[in-house]
């Protein structure tokens, strides 16, 4: 028999004799692997669905989009392609107030005016089915079912959009790429493009998006056109999309989402690693005699390691396989959880590669974590078989431990990188984990020292006894604080991030905050708006002027040239239409980040050398300008030179009229502009009535009900939070296992101690109180440190990742601390119930 054969045979016998002994190890691995397999299988399904549905998402092979009617260069390209056999369709998108006279209902809607056979791929399914094919036959409208519900309307009603009237002929059952967030700002309405003019809605200042969709014959490659014509078109502010680009972009975005969820799964697995280690510690302690006997019988340290290594690996493999099977089940739940956030329908199917990866990662993590305590079996002296009380104090340091520690660190970085798809982020993640563990370790060490040094002599005996357990030989302080603390830290961070995100989204919080926005007011309409507000007894904010403009040049470089040679991201900032304002002071949602706010100009000086502007700092970074740089704006064909006087940080989460660019007073007063004003109407029915009134009087003025947007956003955030919670549930599961495992490491010693104390006359309730004191201290220490750590982590995440404000949420943290302490005490007491149940003699004899 070979060495390996011996190890496997012995391992198999051990498992057969007590299969439940390493159950904790198996379970610790299984939970993490289940989480990983679930999320990675889902990612694989998602990629698959994106690959299959990307063409349907775009609806064509190629599309050209612009915020202005398509320029001549784009039209020429379309003509050329059509003459070579391409099919063309047009869609014009804009927001407007939809109004149903029969029910008197008004709602902000997103209109898509269709010309041609859009979509060429994928399909817009309607109810009744014929509604889409008959859309073009008259003044028809196909609408989102949500609109009918909101307006208490039905198919067959008349829908007014601006000056035009349409008959609602059907509802949209499904349209490709329709994602929740978009619908939050207004349900969709499809109308034939030839009645667009009748609405009279696309006048000055209206925001619209003009899109051309092309189905190309096999002889023309979309990707080649995008490559050749892209730069010229981009310089004219036309965005070119192909199926291939969309697919890549989608995959990238979605991988980021699932990557972060995967990280939560990885945390569950790594936490499980701690569970594995403590399971092995307990296991080895029980096996001491056997190991010593094997050594007496001539087994070398390496062979003993082989036996127990094989056993641990076998149990880890079982755990991984079990976890993979559970993961496949959990995978079925993920599409339902995330469906509102995804532009594609995800069909679940078993992903063997995700399963293999999950099992592999589980086996690897468990093996490395198990190896730490297993290394010690090499050092079990055969003499231990002769004398149980053999002292192990003179054991030299094992250099292999460093090697295993190194492997552990490298594994964490590698697995995290693999999961997020970026080495740098993987390293940051591993670094964060390391810092958290280090802080926990240091504080547990401090707790041990404190218990030894500063235990007040005046404490009641039972407390002193319990707290002394924190520093006595083979105490469990470090393991328990690490295990509980790490789990609580992760949980705390998740809770804090979630609460802070939700806080930022509270748009209408506070009774005085406005909840209705009135857009696109033409200057000559302002008296009518003000009269309407007065009649309704409403006060409104001062109307804010909005001037649409584009960037003409930055620091002397024409934007066309810059567009032709920059990537997609900055291109958007250069290409987009800016809706700027002018005012003399900062508003409450702004903070000066650099430069100085303007003081009134001296009489006689004007803006000939450039008006002063203040730029939002994120935008400034994107287009590469700082204080003192020059930007020339194109305002309705007129060039206006400006100089950056200051940079501002803007809290965009506050739904107030916020601006990327603010001009100094005296600069834009003569430019064509529209106005925005805000008001607050508490009762939803009053809000509806006012919207209706305004829609009748001024059809082009759009009103946005912020509470509707708020609800939609909250629904979305709830979905994300639910998905994160779902994954965090795995972490919580392993955390509990780890806690049980950590406490089990000292269980036998506790039982024996308890028996001795009882022999010496301690009552059961006294022993309970000793245990209570110890676990209370452990839980409180772990929870307090974890709370501080999660504050730091959540603050860092809020600052650098989510870029928002941070509030510490003390009540929630207090609840977390309380929960963790109670759980620790509870598990500790359960763990010690054997001390009470068994008679002292039974325990002492069992020695």
């Amino acid at each position: 028999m070979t060495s390996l054969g011996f190890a496997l045979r012995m391992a198999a016998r051990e498992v057969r004799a007590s299969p439940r002994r390493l159950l904790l190890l198996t379970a610790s691995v299984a939970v993490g692997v289940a989480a990983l397999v679930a999320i990675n299988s889902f990612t694989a399904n998602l990629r698959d669905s994106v690959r299959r549905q990307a063409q349907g998402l775009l609806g064509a092979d190629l599309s050209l989009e612009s915020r202005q009617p398509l320029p001549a260069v784009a039209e020429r390209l379309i003509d050329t392609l059509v003459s070579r056999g391409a099919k063309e369709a047009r869609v014009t998108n804009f927001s407007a107030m939809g109004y149903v006279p029969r029910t008197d209902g008004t709602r902000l809607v997103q209109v898509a005016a269709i010309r041609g056979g859009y979509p060429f791929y994928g399909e817009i399914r309607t109810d009744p089915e014929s509604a889409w094919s008959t859309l073009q036959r008259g003044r028809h409208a196909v609408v989102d079912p949500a609109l009918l519900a909101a307006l208490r309307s039905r198919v067959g009603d008349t829908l007014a959009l601006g000056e035009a009237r349409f008959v609602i002929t059907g509802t949209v059952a499904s349209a490709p790429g329709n994602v929740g967030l978009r619908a939050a700002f207004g349900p969709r309405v499809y109308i034939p493009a030839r009645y667009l003019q009748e609405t009279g809605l696309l006048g000055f200042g209206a925001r619209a998006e003009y899109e051309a969709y092309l189905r190309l014959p096999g002889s023309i490659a979309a990707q080649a056109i995008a490559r050749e014509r892209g730069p010229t078109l981009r310089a004219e502010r036309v965005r070119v999309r192909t199926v291939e680009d969309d697919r890549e972009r989608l995959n990238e975005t979605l991988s980021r989402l699932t990557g972060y969820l995967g990280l939560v799964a990885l945390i569950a697995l790594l936490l499980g690693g701690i569970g594995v280690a403590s399971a092995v510690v307990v296991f080895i302690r029980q096996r001491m005699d056997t190991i010593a006997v094997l050594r007496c019988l001539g087994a070398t340290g390496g062979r003993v390691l082989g036996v127990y290594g094989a056993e641990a690996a076998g149990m880890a493999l079982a755990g991984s396989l079990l976890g993979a099977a559970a993961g496949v089940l959990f995978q079925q739940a993920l599409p339902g959880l995330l469906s509102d956030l995804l532009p594609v329908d995800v069909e679940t199917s078993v992903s063997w590669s995700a399963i293999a990866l999950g099992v592999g990662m589980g086996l690897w993590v468990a093996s490395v974590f198990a190896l730490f305590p297993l290394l010690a079996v090499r050092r079990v002296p055969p003499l231990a078989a002769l004398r149980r009380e053999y002292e192990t104090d003179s054991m030299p340091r094992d250099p292999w431990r460093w090697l295993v520690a190194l492997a552990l660190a490298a594994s964490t970085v590698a697995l995290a990188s693999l999961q997020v798809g970026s080495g740098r982020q993987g390293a940051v993640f591993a670094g964060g984990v390391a810092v958290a563990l280090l802080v926990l370790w240091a504080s547990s060490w401090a707790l041990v020292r404190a218990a030894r040094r500063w235990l007040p002599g005046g404490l009641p005996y039972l407390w002193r006894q319990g707290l002394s357990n924190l520093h006595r030989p083979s105490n469990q302080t470090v393991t328990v604080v690490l295990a509980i603390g790490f789990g609580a830290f992760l949980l705390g961070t998740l809770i804090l991030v979630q609460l802070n995100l939700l806080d930022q989204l509270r748009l209408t919080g506070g009774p005085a905050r406005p909840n209705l926005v009135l857009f696109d007011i033409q200057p000559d309409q302002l008296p009518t708006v003000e009269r309407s507000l007065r009649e309704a007894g409403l006060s409104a904010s001062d109307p804010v002027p909005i001037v649409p403009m584009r960037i003409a040049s930055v620091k002397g470089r024409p934007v066309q040239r810059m567009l032709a040679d920059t990537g997609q991201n900055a291109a958007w900032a250069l290409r987009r239409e800016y809706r700027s304002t002018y005012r003399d002071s900062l508003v409450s949602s702004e903070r000066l980040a650099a430069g100085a706010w303007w003081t009134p100009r001296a009489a006689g000086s004007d803006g000939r050398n450039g008006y002063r502007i203040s730029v939002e700092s994120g935008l400034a970074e994107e287009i590469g300008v700082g204080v003192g740089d020059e930007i020339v704006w194109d305002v309705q064909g007129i060039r206006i030179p400006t100089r950056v006087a200051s940079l501002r940080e803007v809290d965009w989460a506050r739904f107030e009229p916020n601006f990327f660019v603010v001009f100094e007073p005296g600069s834009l007063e003569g430019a064509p502009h529209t106005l925005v004003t805000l008001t607050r109407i508490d009762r939803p029915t009053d809000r509806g009535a006012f919207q209706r009134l305004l829609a009748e009087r001024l059809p082009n003025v759009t009103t946005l009900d912020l509470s509707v947007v708020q609800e939609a956003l909250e629904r979305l955030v709830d979905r994300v939070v639910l998905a994160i919670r779902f994954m965090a549930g795995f972490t919580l599961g392993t955390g509990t296992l780890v806690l049980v495992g950590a406490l089990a490491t000292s269980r036998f010693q506790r039982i024996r101690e308890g028996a001795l104390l009882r022999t010496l006359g301690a009552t059961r309730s006294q022993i309970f109180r000793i245990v209570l004191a110890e676990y209370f201290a452990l839980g409180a220490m772990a929870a307090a440190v974890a709370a501080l750590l999660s504050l730091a982590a959540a603050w860092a995440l809020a600052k650098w990742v989510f870029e928002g404000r941070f509030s510490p949420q003390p009540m929630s943290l207090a609840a977390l601390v309380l929960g963790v302490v109670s759980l620790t005490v509870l598990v500790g007491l359960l763990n010690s119930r054997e001390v009470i149940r068994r008679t002292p003699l039974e325990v002492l004899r069992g020695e």
Partner: protein
Amino acid sequence: MLRCTALTKTYRSGGRDLTVLNDITFSVEPGGFAAIVGPSGSGKTTLLGLLAGLDRPTAGTVHLDGQELGALDEDARARMRGEKIGFVFQSFQLIPTLTARENIQVPLELRGEEAGARAADLLERVGLGDRGHHYPAQLSGGEQQRVALARAFSTGPKVLFADEPTGNLDARTGASIIDLMVDLNRDLGTTLVLVTHDLDLAARARRTIRLADGRIVADTAA
């Protein structure tokens, strides 16, 4: 077969040196049967551990079958134990997760040998032919010690070390275990070294080495 020279063992305990064994020299011829006796704390078990290569002496040497143990590293001593040494412990030290028969097989399997037939033989020999599939917990103390004896003899060791082999057994069972050891010693020519504080048991040996305070105070042949 077994020779120790000027064997000394010192432990450091509480900052002070504690000499447990002091200048022990004796030898046991092949096929011999020696009992080491003495009160508790006299260093008996420490001496046994050193003789069997389970621990290293502070000074002095042990030669077993011509090999100086101090010259071997821990793994080499493990292999030497597997080949030439058998053990019987006071608390039997059967591996609780293995059946009686598997316990007997382990030393042979460690050498890479198939051991089924030999284990069956030995079980028969110690009178437990039909108990091979039982776990230690299902056996009485005497039966466990017989399995331990069978395990100790499974490799045909040159020397068998026994540490209070009857200490956890009643007198009658203890006597039968000793009978078995003596039989095996006679039949297989195995050298026996026995540690005990039971003088009746020591009387069965052909030689008695008496320890007190870490020194040999008497060495008598029966």
